[in-house]
């Protein structure tokens, strides 16, 4: 781990000011960043600790929630409003990592966690365009069972590993940012990038820009939501495929649907093709399957991960069927 300086910010403005003064990285719970520092993947000159920033969950007048970026994952999953009104989010968080890690991890840090591609972490022994632009990608011809089936490029096939972000994507969450140029908001689905030719650029954040909060818009009263994660063991494994879904059915027809996938792409994947195919149509297993296939029509397989396409198809279908069938 490279030597670095450490500063603890008292508020967002101070954090942004600290970060602007040097090559800094914001430190949340550290559950991913400390690993990256220890492995030498990230080598910032400074850490700005933002865990002291507001960690509150506030009800909005419109019925939504405003979640401070420093809220710990455990606290978010345990929040009564989250559990009762956004169960997809509580379930997604609880499907991730371990209790110890969730106790430390923050909302902001979870959003900005980096891929678990093994070649990305192997700084001495493997090539990685995300770590060293232009170097090449050893994952494409290597172990890629967990890698992307959607939106990948010839430069990078890594996935975004977050469970929470899949739920946030399905909930149309909005990310609140603060930077040297002031405050702004971005839909979560637009925050992360696809890899293209520059997998080293993972988000639309400006240098030094800080996530201060995540806003959840209200859910329609008839909407039901669910999260399902498929993985190689019962706990403490990243998603091979995960599905976050919000479904509103009226008179047997899909009034509204929002669907996002985790573990399949470089970013939390909002499944708009499937949504478009479903909206206004019948809420039947056949329609769900057809919608899943429409979404995955663009999917491509690497050597090891072809099964994820069918797994995503099945999981989407099963989750929607479960939501439609529940009273």
């Amino acid at each position, binding site marked *: 781990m490279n*030597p670095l300086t450490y500063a603890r910010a008292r508020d967002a403005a101070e954090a942004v000011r600290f970060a602007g003064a040097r090559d800094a990285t914001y430190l949340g719970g550290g559950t991913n960043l400390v690993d990256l520092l220890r492995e030498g993947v990230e080598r910032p000159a400074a850490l700005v600790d933002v865990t002291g920033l507001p960690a509150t969950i506030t009800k909005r007048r419109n019925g939504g929630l405003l979640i401070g970026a420093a809220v710990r994952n455990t606290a978010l999953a345990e929040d009564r409003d989250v559990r009762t009104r956004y169960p997809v989010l509580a379930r997604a968080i609880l499907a991730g990592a371990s209790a110890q890690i969730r106790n430390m991890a923050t909302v902001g840090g979870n959003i900005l966690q980096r891929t678990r591609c093994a070649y990305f972490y192997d700084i001495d022994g493997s090539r990685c365009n995300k770590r060293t632009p232009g170097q090449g990608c*050893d994952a494409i011809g290597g*172990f890629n069972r967990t890698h992307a089936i959607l939106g990948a490029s010839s430069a990078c096939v890594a996935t975004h590993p977050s469970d929470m972000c899949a739920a946030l994507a399905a909930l149309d969450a909005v990310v609140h940012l603060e930077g040297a140029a002031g405050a702004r908001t971005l839909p979560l689905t637009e925050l992360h990038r696809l890899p293209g030719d520059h997998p080293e650029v993972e988000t639309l954040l400006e240098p030094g820009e800080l996530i201060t909060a995540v806003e959840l818009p209200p859910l329609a009263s008839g909407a039901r939501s669910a999260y399902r994660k498929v993985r*190689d063991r019962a706990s403490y494994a990243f998603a091979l495929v995960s599905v976050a879904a919000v479904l509103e059915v009226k008179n047997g027809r899909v009034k509204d649907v929002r669907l996002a996938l985790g573990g399949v792409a470089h970013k939390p994947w909002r499944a708009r093709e499937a949504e478009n195919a479903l909206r206004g149509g019948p809420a039947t297993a056949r329609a769900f399957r057809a919608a899943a296939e429409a979404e995955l029509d663009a999917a491509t397989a690497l050597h090891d991960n072809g099964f994820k396409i069918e797994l995503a198809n099945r999981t989407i279908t099963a989750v929607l069927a479960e939501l439609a069938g529940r009273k």
Partner: protein
Amino acid sequence: MSNVEGSGRPTQHEGAAQQDTSLTRRGVLGIFGAAGAGALVSTFTGPPGVGPVSLVSEAAPEVLVQRGSGWVGAALSRIDGPLKVRGMARFAAEFALDDMVYAALVFSTIAKGRIATLDTGAAEAAPGFVLVMTHRNAPRMQPMVPFGPNEKAAGNDNLPIMQDDRVRWNGQPIAVVLAETQEQADHAASLIRVTYEAEPATTSFAQAKANGTEGAVYFHHEIGDAEAELAAAAVSVDATYRTPYQNHNAIEPHAVTVAWHGDELVVHDASQSVVHNAWSLAHILGIEERQVHVTSPYVGGAFGGKFMGSHQVLAAAAARLAGRPVRLTLSREGVYRMVGGRALTEQRMAIGARRDGRFDAIIHTGTATHTRDSPHPEAFPFVSLSAYATGSLKTDLQWAFLDQVANAAMRAPGEAVGSFALESAVDEVAVALGMDPIELRIRNEPKTDPLNGAEFSSRNVVKAWRDGAERFGWAKRNPIPGAVRKGEWLVGMGCGTASHIYNRENGGAARLTLTSDGTVTVDIATHDAGMGTETAQTQIIAENLALHPDQVEFRLADSAMPGLVAGRGSSQTTTVAATVVEAKKMLVAELLTLIRADSPLAGLTAQQVGPRNAGLAKLDDPTRHETYTAILTRAKRDKVTVEASPDEPTEMNERSMHSYGAMFCEVRVNAVTGETRVSRMLGSMDCGRVINPKTAASQFRGGMIMAMGLALTEHTHYDERTGRIMNPSLAEYHIPVHLDVPEIDVIWTGIPDPHAPMGARGIGELSVTGTAAAIANAIYNATGKRIRELPITLDKLM
């Protein structure tokens, strides 16, 4: 000695366990205490699902434990448990020596070639830097000697250790950096820049096979014409089974703290072979064996991965160069790069059977990866040599050589992966015959060893099957695959036979000191890597000497102690038990020389007396008794010391000796996603007498959990392009987590083996065999899908 006294049957035990509660209790047992002996034998109640521990057979030979008065068989809690949970047990990386420095390693990133440039300048300028050792400045050293003819050898390879610029595997240590703190050492190591001249390396299994394989002679056996018998069989299975590379993941990574005192080396090791390691380090470093002192009182799991390794050598050499004590702790990545694990196997498993189920042919052949320097053969066919009666048999093991870290012994090496193929194939034959797989196994139960006709010392696996089937509810199993469904989940049951060969080491030796306060200390250079050796041996000593365990101190894992007893081959308990029995005989003889004319024991011979109630008594007249304290006090002796070595372990040459188990499993396979969840497991074991039901049950459960990993999740991602392991971490190398592990029920026949010391056979590796097949067979029963390649991940079941 003879492991059984007199008649060749297990001895009638002379000394009842001490019941006198007025005795001063001492040590941790005194604090955390065992209950009185009388209550311990048959009342062990573990967590839910543990069930009755001893199913005593009517056919059991008469030995003391079955009569319920001894310490052997008592469910004593671990002596070392309180120390461990309070953080008071010091492990190898927890010795803080004065002036100590910390080591970090740099690993090669190519599989074969030479180091072209090695720039240590930036590292040397880093904060806290003390020293860097590379092939340029390492002391001249011999390679370690691998396991083999030399009885003190315990090396995993015979490669030069930092003696030249050659790279022999991807992950080989090429530099050791010492610094004032671990963080400074890690940082300085990260600043070392290396370039290589790479040479073509064999890093793929296909290439290794194409290069030509070599047969491992010891594992080639043929009885009759198995190919012809297979071809003519009414029913046959002939399939290829594959198992992947797997790595060691003991909870405690390998660690060592070393200090030189002049030319004498003190080593705080994490080891399952302290005497071997002392000898090895002396040989490697060019000093005398007596100049090396290795201790390893607490070890956080070993499993065959903690014999002699190059990390101890590197630490000792760097400490010599630096003139300061060194602590070297392998990172988890370091364990993967340097230690090795199970080899990859590709097995042909064929069985030919008659319509009535009897086997006419068993063929178990195939290829395992290997390195030229590895002493560990990954001998998967071994399991098929003694399993079933068969008209003909063929086994063969071919080695395909790769440029990679030498594979290591890993809990039931060979047998764990070989039993997956054998016991899956038996299940396939049962399906083909439409016969119950337990009934098929019983029909093929051999009367004598199938390979050489030797008598079995004790084989009650049929009873284990019957008891297990009843307890598990096997009769409720639907034999039609895919027929049981609960919601999305397909439910199935499967089973497999566990077996592991009996071993007793040749090097058993003990120093036993009885003091006039009536306590005894026994020193044996044996090991406790968490399995409960210390506790089990304390019970054996207490039973043999008729003492309370609180009066016994068992000391172990110190190379200065007698004995050459590596923790391997599930042999420690039998080896030490035989040694203790011998030491008891010597102690009795020695005490008789102290008997005076006014003693109640005056005039008696060694054949007439034995330990009883904290002293000696006439066997047929216990009223003629004198306590140890009285004997020593009368003789004005503070203590009596004897050193004992048992007779050579010939019992396994004369008979076919194995431990067995009938392993049961129920799985649920998700019909949508292919996810497998093990919902129930039962091990019904036949392992001779069980010394301690608590520690034994833990051993069995641990092995079954390890087999869950073998079956379902564990897979070293060895990149065949580069020879590099890509998942050297517990996050990405998937061992079962708590949520994967259901209640595991364990029972045993409890039938003592009349030819094993104390009636006990080894149990350490047993339950990791057979269980992976039980899981795979349950998956077949649930889904109708026969998966012959491990791990059985969900993509194989979609």
